[in-house]
C-alpha cells in the first residue's frame, strides 16, 4: 500500500498514474476508475433509452391496432361504459366483501390442512401406514381434480343427499376450495420439511427432544420460513379462485357482475369485478415480493449450517 507503483495489479491497467495518496481517508478514485464509472453511466443511459423507445413503439402499435379496429366502438360501448360501471360498482363491491371473507377463511383452512397432511406424510414406521397412505392419496387425488368439479360435487352433490344439518352452499364451496388448495399447500410444506438438513434433526434428537418436539421446535419453524414465498403465491392464486364460488350461487363480486350484465346486456360489470380482484391482489402480491426478496437475502447470508 505504501508503494503503489510496485503493486502488480497496477501494471496491466494501462490507465493514468496511480493516485499516490498515502492515507486511506484521503482516497479519491483514480482517473482509471472515474473513466470506468463514466463509461458504465453512459451505458446505463443508453440501455434505458433503448428500452423506453421499444416500449413506446410496441405500445403505440398495440393501441393503434385496438383503437383503429373496425369493431372498437362497439367493444368500447359493451365493455368500457363508465355509466354502467358506476351503476354496477356498489353491487359488485358488496359481492367482493363476500370474496374477501371467504378468502380469509379458506386461506387459514387450507394452510392448516396442508400443514397437517405434510406432517402426516413425513411420519415413519408401520404404525402410521394408514395415516400416511391417506395423506398421500389425498395429495395425489386433489392435486389432479379440477377445482370446478370438486366445487360442483360439494355444492350440488352434498345437499342432494338431504342429510340433516347440511351446511350452507357457501360453507360447502369453501370446503371445496380448502380441500383442493390444501393438497397443493401440503406439497409445498413437505418440500420445506424435507429441505431442512438431517443434521438438524440429529442435533435435536441428540439433545433428548422427541420426534414431535424436534418437528415442532426445530424442523417446522425452518421449513415454514423457507416456503413462505411459494405459500404466499398459492394464496394469491386462491384469492382469485374464490370467485369460482359464484358458480354455486352465492352472490359474490362475479355473481353480482353477472346479474348486472343480465340487466343491461352490457359486459362492463365484469370489467369492474376484474379490476376489483386485481386491486385486492395487489397488497398480497407486494407482500409476497417483499418476503421473497428477504428470504433470498437470508439464504445468501446463510453460509454455515
Amino acid at each position, binding site marked *: 500500500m505504501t508503494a503503489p507503483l510496485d503493486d502488480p495489479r497496477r501494471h496491466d491497467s494501462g490507465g493514468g498514474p496511480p493516485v499516490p495518496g498515502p492515507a486511506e481517508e484521503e482516497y479519491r478514485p483514480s482517473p482509471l476508475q472515474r473513466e470506468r464509472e463514466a463509461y458504465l453511466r453512459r451505458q446505463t443511459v443508453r440501455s434505458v433509452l433503448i428500452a423506453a423507445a421499444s416500449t413506446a413503439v410496441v405500445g403505440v402499435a398495440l393501441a393503434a391496432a385496438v383503437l383503429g379496429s373496425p369493431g372498437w366502438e362497439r367493444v368500447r360501448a359493451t365493455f368500457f361504459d363508465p355509466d354502467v360501471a358506476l351503476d354496477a360498482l356498489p353491487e359488485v363491491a358488496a359481492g367482493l366483501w363476500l370474496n374477501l371473507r371467504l378468502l380469509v377463511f379458506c386461506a387459514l383452512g387450507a394452510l392448516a390442512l396442508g400443514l397437517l397432511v405434510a406432517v402426516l406424510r413425513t411420519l415413519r414406521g408401520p404404525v402410521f401406514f394408514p395415516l400416511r397412505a391417506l395423506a398421500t392419496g389425498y395429495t395425489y387425488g386433489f392435486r389432479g381434480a379440477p377445482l370446478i368439479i370438486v366445487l360442483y360435487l360439494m355444492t350440488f352433490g352434498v345437499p342432494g343427499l338431504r342429510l340433516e344439518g347440511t351446511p350452507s352452499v357457501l360453507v360447502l364451496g369453501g370446503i371445496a376450495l380448502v380441500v383442493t388448495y390444501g393438497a397443493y399447500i401440503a406439497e409445498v410444506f413437505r418440500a420445506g420439511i424435507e429441505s431442512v*438438513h438431517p*443434521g*438438524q434433526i*440429529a*442435533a*435435536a*434428537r*441428540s*439433545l*433428548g*427432544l*422427541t420426534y414431535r*418436539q424436534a418437528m415442532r*421446535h*426445530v424442523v417446522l*419453524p*425452518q421449513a415454514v*420460513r423457507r416456503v413462505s414465498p411459494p405459500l404466499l403465491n398459492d394464496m394469491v392464486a386462491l384469492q382469485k379462485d374464490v370467485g369460482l364460488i359464484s358458480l354455486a350461487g352465492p352472490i359474490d363480486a362475479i355473481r353480482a357482475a353477472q346479474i348486472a350484465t343480465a340487466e343491461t346486456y352490457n359486459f362492463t360489470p365484469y370489467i369492474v369485478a376484474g379490476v376489483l380482484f386485481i386491486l385486492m391482489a395487489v397488497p398480497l402480491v407486494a407482500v409476497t415480493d417483499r418476503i421473497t426478496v428477504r428470504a433470498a437475502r437470508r439464504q445468501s*447470508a*446463510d*453460509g*454455515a*449450517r
Partner: protein
Amino acid sequence: MSGANPPADGADRPPLLALDGVRKEFGGSPVLRSLTLDVAEHEVVVLIGASGSGKSTLLRCINLLEPISDGSIRLDGEHITDPRVDPDRVRRRIGMVFQSYNLFPHMTVVDNITLAPRRVHGRPRAEAEEQARELLARVGLSDKASEYPDRLSGGQQQRAAIVRALVNTPRLLLLDEVTSALDPELVGEVLTLVQSLRADGMTMLLATHEMGFARSVADRVCFLDGGRILEQGPPEQVLDAPEHPRTRRFLQRFAEGGRL
C-alpha cells in the same frame, strides 16, 4: 493421565460405556464389525482412522441415532440397545457435538442452548437462561448470547454447540470431528475448551483427524480400520510406536501431511 485400560480405579465398578460385539450394516455392507470397547468414567477415548473407517457411525450408534445390526451397548450398566428402552430418555444422558455444529439457525445462541432444558427437562426459562449464560461466559461467548448462529465464526459456533450439549449435564460426551470444519486458526479455541472439559473429569469419546489433539487429550487412542479396533493404547504407544503395519501406514500419511 490415569493411563491405559483398564482404568486405575479398579474393577468394582462397571464401565460407563460398554460396547460388546457391535455390528452395523448399511444396506448389507458392514461398517462396524464385532466392535468391543469399554470407556470408564472420567476417561477420554479418542478414535482415529481413515474416512469411512466407522468413527462417526460408531458415535451415532451410541447415541441411538442409528440402530445397530448386532451386539449390545450399555450405558451405566443399562442395556440401551434393548428395543424396550426409550431412546429419548437415553439421549438425555449423552451429549453429542457434530462436525458441522448443527446449531439451529432460527434461534439465538441462548435459545439453542436452553431448548432442551426448557422442552425436555421442563425447567423455567429464566433459570435455564441463567445457566446458559454462565456456561457461555466460561467459553468466552458472553457477548454472543443473543446473536443468531450465522453471525458467529465457525469456532464460536462450535463452542456454542458444545455448551448446548453440556447444558443437559450428560454422563458422556460424544464429539464427532468437532474441528474438521474449522479454519486452522480457529481450531485452537475449540481444542482448549475440550481440554478444560477433560480437566473437569468429563467422560468423552471423540473422533478426530487432529493427531496433536488426540495426543494431548486422550487417555487412550483407538485406531479404527474396516469397522474394527485394530490397535489401542495410551497415545504415546499408538501414535509413536504403533504395532500394526496399517496403523503405521495411516500415521505415516498424516506425518507427510504435516499434521502429526
